C-alpha cells in the first residue's frame, strides 16, 4: 500500500484526467519563466472552490471521527456521511519511513506541498516554526496554472502561531512569491491598522518614531515579499473589518472563533477559490488540561458548521465547493501519563490522522480503511482543481473521485 501511495492511480477518473490535462498544460507553459518573468496569459479558473480545514493543532482520530468518543459531532455525524472519510490517513507511512516531524508547521506544509521534508527553522531557533518550503504549495500551482488573483487564494491563520502565516509560498525558483496566496490574520490586521494610524497622523515626535519602528519590525517579519503592498481587495477587507470591529481588538471573536469569522467574511468579500483555515486551539493541551483539547475540537466543529452554512447560503459556492478536513498531525495516546496528548516525539499515534473530503465530484458515504498518506492531499487537490503538483511525491487519493 505504501508503494501505491507514490504511484499514479491505474485508472484515473474522467474528470480527473480532464482537469489534469488542462492544468498540466498551463503549468508546462509557464514553468520555465521563473519568478521574475511576466506570467503568460493563463486560463480563467472555472473549477470547484476548495476549503481546507486544518483540524489542528494536532487531533487524534478518537476525539474527532470515532462516533463513541467524538467531540466533533457535526464533522462525525453530519459531514462524514456526505463525503469520503480516509480514516487511516498517516503522516509518513513510507517504508522505510522518512522520519519527518509530526507537528503543526510541518504538517501544514506536508498538506500544502505534498512532500515530506525534514524542516528546520530558517533562523535556527529552538522550537522555531519558521519554515520555507523547497517545493511549491498548492496555492502556487493553482495561481501559475490559472488566472487567479492572490486574494482569491487564502491562508486564514491564528494569532498564536505567526510563523505559519508565511507558508503561502515556497522558495522554489519556478514558483515563489509571484504566485503566493494572501494571509488573513490578526497579525495582518494589526500591521494594517498601525500603518493606517501612522498615515493618519495619530502620533508625533518620539511616539511616532517608536510606532514607525514597531511597524518596520512587523513588516520585516514577511521579509520574502520585500515589503510588497497588499492588494486593494485585501486592504478593503481590513477596512471593513476595522469599521465593524473597531481598533481595540476586544470586540472581534477570539481564538479559533476568530478564524471562523475571518473565513466566513472572506467567503463573502474576497471570494476565494482555494482557502486554508489553520485551526489550532486544541494544541493548548500541551499545558496539561485535557479539556482544552476537547473544547478546542468542539470549537473547530462549530467553526466548520458556520463555514458550511456560509457556503450553502451562497449561490456561487453552494454545490461548487469541496471541503477537505485534515489534521496537521495526530497526538500521542500515551497510557503512562495523566494527559497523553503530546505529539513531538514521533509516536505512532502522532502519525495517525484522518481526512474527510466532501463536495461536488467526491463520492458520498464512503469510508476508506486502508492506509493513505497526508501528502496525497496536494495531488488530490491538484486533480480536483485541474493542476499538476509536479513536485508532490504522492499520488491523488483515488477513492475520493466519483
Amino acid at each position, binding site marked *: 500500500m505504501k508503494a501505491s501511495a507514490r504511484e499514479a492511480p491505474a485508472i484515473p477518473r474522467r474528470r480527473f484526467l480532464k482537469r489534469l490535462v488542462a492544468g498540466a498544460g498551463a503549468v508546462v507553459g509557464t514553468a520555465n519563466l521563473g519568478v521574475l518573468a511576466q506570467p503568460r496569459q493563463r486560463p480563467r479558473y472555472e473549477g470547484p472552490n476548495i476549503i481546507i480545514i486544518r483540524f489542528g493543532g494536532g487531533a487524534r482520530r478518537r476525539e474527532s471521527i470515532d462516533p463513541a468518543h467524538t467531540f466533533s459531532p457535526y464533522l462525525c455525524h453530519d459531514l462524514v456521511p456526505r463525503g469520503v472519510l480516509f480514516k487511516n490517513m498517516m503522516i509518513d507511512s513510507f517504508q522505510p519511513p522518512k522520519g519527518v516531524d509530526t507537528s503543526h508547521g510541518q504538517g501544514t506544509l506536508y498538506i500544502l506541498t505534498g512532500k515530506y521534508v525534514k524542516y528546520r527553522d530558517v533562523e535556527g531557533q529552538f522550537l522555531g516554526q519558521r519554515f520555507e518550503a523547497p517545493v511549491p504549495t498548492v496555492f502556487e500551482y493553482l495561481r501559475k496554472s490559472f488566472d487567479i488573483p492572490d486574494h482569491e487564494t487564502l491562508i486564514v491563520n491564528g494569532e498564536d502561531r505567526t510563523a505559519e502565516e508565511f507558508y503561502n509560498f515556497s522558495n522554489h525558483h519556478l514558483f515563489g512569491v509571484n504566485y503566493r496566496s494572501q494571509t488573513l490574520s490578526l497579525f495582518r490586521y494589526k500591521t494594517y491598522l498601525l500603518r493606517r494610524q501612522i498615515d493618519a497622523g495619530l502620533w508625533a515626535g518620539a511616539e511616532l518614531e517608536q510606532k514607525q519602528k514597531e511597524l518596520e519590525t512587523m513588516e520585516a517579519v514577511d521579509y520574502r515579499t520585500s515589503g510588497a503592498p497588499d492588494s486593494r481587495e485585501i486592504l478593503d477587507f481590513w477596512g471593513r473589518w476595522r469599521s465593524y470591529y473597531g481598533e481595540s481588538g*476586544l470586540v472581534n471573536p477570539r481564538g479559533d472563533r476568530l478564524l471562523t469569522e475571518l473565513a466566513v467574511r472572506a467567503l463573502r468579500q474576497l471570494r476565494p477559490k482555494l482557502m486554508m483555515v489553520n485551526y489550532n*486551539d486544541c494544541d493548548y493541551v500541551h499545558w496539561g488540561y485535557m479539556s482544552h483539547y476537547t473544547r478546542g475540537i468542539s470549537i473547530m466543529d462549530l467553526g466548520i458548521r458556520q463555514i458550511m452554512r456560509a457556503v450553502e447560503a451562497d449561490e456561487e459556492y453552494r454545490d461548487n465547493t469541496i471541503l477537505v478536513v485534515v489534521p496537521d498531525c495526530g497526538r500521542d495516546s500515551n497510557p*503512562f501519563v495523566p494527559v497523553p496528548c503530546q505529539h513531538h*516525539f514521533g509516536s505512532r499515534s502522532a502519525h495517525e490522522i484522518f481526512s474527510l473530503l466532501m463536495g461536488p465530484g467526491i463520492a458520498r458515504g464512503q469510508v476508506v480503511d486502508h492506509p493513505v498518506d497526508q501528502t496525497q492531499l496536494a495531488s488530490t487537490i491538484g486533480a480536483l482543481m485541474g493542476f499538476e503538483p509536479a513536485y508532490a511525491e504522492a499520488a491523488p487519493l483515488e477513492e475520493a473521485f466519483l
Partner: protein
Amino acid sequence: MSEPASAPPERTSRARLPLRVRWSFWRIVLLPLQLLWAMLLVQSLIGSLVVVGWTYRLIRRSVIKRWWAQSGRQSGETFVDFLSARPDLKSHSRWPNWIVEQDFSSSWKEVDDSGRWPGGRLLKSLFHSLGLNLKLGLQAVANTWVLTLPACALWLFGWHAGWINSFTKGYESASVGPLIGWSGVLLFIVVMMYLPMAQIRQAVTGEWRTFYQFTLISTLIRHSPLQCLGLALLYSLTSFPVLVLKTIPGYLPQINPALTDADPARVREILNGYFFWCALVVLAGFVFLRWVAGRIYASAVLRARRSGDLERSQLVGSERRLLEDLELIPLRALSRGNWLRRVVGQTLGSVGRLIVVGLTAAVWFSFVVQIFVFQFLTYQSGIGWLNQPLVQAPWFRYLPASVANPWGPVIVFVFLILIALVLRAAWGWLDRLRVQERLSPGTGSR
C-alpha cells in the same frame, strides 16, 4: 535505666570491640533491607511521612555527632561512649530504627527479669520507632506544608488561571495568571531561604514549635550565608535528576514502542516497578540534603554562640544541656575555620551579604524553573505542584488517572489522620475518666 551509666569503665571498654563488630555485621546485613523498606515506604504518602520522621532522627544524631566532634573529645572517648553515658541521648548510639524500639533487646530483658509477660510494653516496643517516625514525620511535613503549600498552591492556580485565560484569549485579564504564578514563585523563594534551616532546627530539638523560632533561625542563616547558598545549589542540582525521573514515564512508549498499547494493568505494573527503583535516587537526595543542612546548622549554632548573637536562653533545654556537656557553652576556643572562610568572613560586608542573598534567591529560582519546565514536559496535575519530593514529603509515585485515582492516597491519608485524632481524643477521655474514678472511688456504684 541508670545501670549502663554507672557501669564500670572497664566493662564498657571490654564490650566496645565485640559490640562494634556485631553492629557492623548487622549494619551490612540490615542496610539493604532497610533501604528496600524505605523505598517501599515512599510509594505512599503515609509511608513517606515515616521516612521523613526517620530522617529527622538520623539528622539529630548527625548534628549531635558533629558537635561532639567539634568539642575535641575524640581522643578520650568514642561517640557511642559519650551517648551511652547520657540516658536522654543513649537512643542515638545507633542509627534510628524503622519499626521496633531503639533498644528493643532491653524490652526482652525486662520480660526475663520480671518473670512476667508485659504484653502492653512489648507491643509498644515492637512498634515504637514506627510510631515515633510517623509522629515526627507528620509534625515535620505539617510544618513544611504550612510554609510551602501556599506558594505551591499559587503555582497551581497561576498555571490554571493563566492557561485557561490564554485559551479563551481573555486579554483583559491576561495578567491574573502570571501574577498569581509569580507571587507563588517569589513566596517560595523567600520560604526556601528559611526552610532548610528551620527543618533541621525541628529535627535537632525534636519539638515542632522550634520550627517557628524565626529570630533564632534567621540568626543562624545570617551566620552561614555561603553555606546556605551552597545548600540551595545542591537542592537545585539534586532536583534535576529527580525531575527527570518523574518525567521519564511519559517517554516510555518512545523508548519501547510496544508499550504504546499497554493495558492499565500492565501500565500499573510497569510504573510500580519504575517508581520503586526511582525511590533509591529520591531517598538518597532527600537524606543527603538534610544531612548537609544538618552540618551547616551545627556549625552555624556554634558560630552564632561564639559571636554572641545567639543567647544561651534561646536554646531549648536538651540542646543547651548537650552543648554544656560538650563544653561548647559557655564560649570556648574553637577553630576559626579555614583560610577561605576567614577571608570571606572579613570581606563580606553588607553589600557582600546582599550579593550572596541575591545569588541564593537566584539559585532557588532555578529550582522553581525546573519544576515549571518539567511540568510542561509531563504535566502532573495537583500533586506535581503541591508536593516537591525533596522539600516536602519524599512521596514519589505518579500514576495516571486511568490507572489509579491520583488523589486516593491523599484521601486515605486525611481519613487515617482523622481516625488517629478521634482515637487520641477517646484515649484522653478514658484517661480522664480513670483519674476521676481513682480520685473519687465508689462514686460510680452510688
